[in-house]
């Protein structure tokens, strides 16, 4: 038997003579080599494969909150249910990623490298890595990759604090578009969660009137609505709250495996707001 990977399983040529491909008019040509296959053009990401759905985030009076579920979808298949999409960078920044999971893992490594070089090697004990720095860095990475026509297929939200301790929240995506707002959501979240969040924080400046308890409740509601209506979402999510305590010190609360509670799967006719009749 021939053990060459391209000819595997065929009768060996020494014993039986070369196979005549003309018989079936098919198969890998005899002159195929490893080098000729390696000459295949290098490909760039043209579409995401394993994907994570929405990330939602908001400012509140003394910090920021961010949430993302733990599902990794392969098209419409629920392929993974243990993907962590919120990552801590430095001491007071969180980065939430949706979109392609392999590109997300690449970004994780880039950010890890950034943290090592900035916080370990180049830090003289003075200033340190903040959310604004992380966001600027990421936006350059994303824009450069799209300019090479080789994008990182993600939408990213960065949350943390400015130097003066006011909350920071900003977005960047696969083409390098950035913006800031008091409430930000990616993917389906921008359709389903943003209306709920903006209901609580109608104008950007209004986040100062909202406390942690209020915003946590709305984020909880948003994650439930997303679970109901986004087919690629899950009922288990991670949540990060970064806030200032009474002494003005940063508290980083990372909560994993939060369940979507108070679900209602009652028959739609009997739920207020669904039936045709007035209730």
């Amino acid at each position, binding site marked *: 038997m021939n053990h060459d990977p391209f000819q595997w399983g065929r009768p060996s040529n020494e014993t039986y003579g070369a196979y005549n491909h003309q018989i079936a008019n098919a198969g890998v040509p005899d002159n195929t080599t490893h080098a000729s296959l390696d000459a295949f053009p290098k490909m760039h990401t043209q579409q995401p494969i394993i994907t994570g759905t929405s990330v939602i985030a908001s400012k509140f009076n003394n910090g920021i909150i961010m949430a993302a579920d733990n599902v990794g979808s392969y098209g419409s298949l629920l392929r993974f249910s243990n993907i962590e999409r919120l990552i801590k960078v430095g001491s007071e920044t969180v980065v939430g990623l949706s979109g392609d999971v392999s590109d997300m893992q690449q970004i994780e490594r880039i950010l890890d490298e950034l943290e090592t070089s900035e916080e370990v090697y180049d830090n003289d004990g003075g200033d340190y890595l903040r959310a604004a720095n992380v966001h600027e860095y990421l936006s350059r990475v994303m*824009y450069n990759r799209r*300019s090479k*026509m080789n994008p990182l297929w993600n939408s990213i939200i960065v949350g943390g604090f400015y130097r003066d301790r006011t909350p920071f929240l900003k977005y960047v995506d696969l083409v390098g578009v950035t*913006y800031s*707002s008091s409430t930000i959501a990616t993917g389906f979240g921008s359709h389903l969660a943003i209306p709920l969040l903006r209901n609580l924080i109608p104008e950007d400046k209004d986040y100062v009137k909202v406390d942690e308890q209020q915003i946590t409740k709305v984020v909880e509601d948003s994650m439930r609505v997303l679970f109901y209506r986004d087919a690629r979402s899950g009922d288990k999510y991670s949540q990060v709250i970064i806030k200032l305590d009474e002494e003005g010190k940063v508290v980083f609360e990372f909560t994993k495996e939060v369940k979507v509670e108070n679900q209602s799967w009652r028959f739609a006719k009997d739920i207020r707001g669904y039936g045709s009749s007035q209730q």
Partner: protein
Amino acid sequence: MQTTVASEYSNEIHSVPIEHRFNPYSDNGGTVLGIAGEDFAVLAGDTRQVEGYSIQSRYEPKIFDVGDNIVMTANGFAADGVALIDKFRQQLKWYKFDNFGGKLEIKSAARYIQHLLYGKRFFPYYVSTLIAGLDEEGKGAVYSYDPVGSYEREQCRAGGAAASLIMPFLDNQVNFKNQFIPGTDGKEKKPLKYLTLEEVIELVRDAFSSATERHIYVGDGLEIKIVTKDGVRTEYYPLKRD
């Protein structure tokens, strides 16, 4: 395409396979407007940023004071706009290092921006660029560009999503196009004159509130940067948020 059975889907039958390709551009809406006066110039833009039918942010400013009494905006694909303005700022910094902190005249800035844009002729910055400031004589100046760097100095120019709604209004109200002296039976044109800053601000506000009514990519807020010999100042007016 000829088919045996008439089908509603005939327009979806392709003779060549559909190709999917990464699109490096997006349209982030917004509109901008520059008007030059006798001893001032203004650059105005709404503060809404969109993607499709979603409003990404209600306050994402896109008019920037880039230094040397020049204000600049690049409206269209937001990431390219930011990149272009960053690049100009960086080069202005180097110009200062190389020229003992000397002032960059607006006509030189204008020519330089042409080179920045044309330098990416075959992968363009997808933006309408405007700059405003004062020329060497202290007169208001507005320069406008197409995405690949073709530019000219003008009295006024609108760019971005609602440019086609605002520009004809400006032709009429700033350059007095189609305006005639009453009683001359449309024979004698209304003579040109410089508008005052107050008149210009009113025009800008009217232009943006009207564009907000008719264009979904325009709204939320209006930010105006005003350049005079005393420097740059900013004014903000709310627009409808629907």
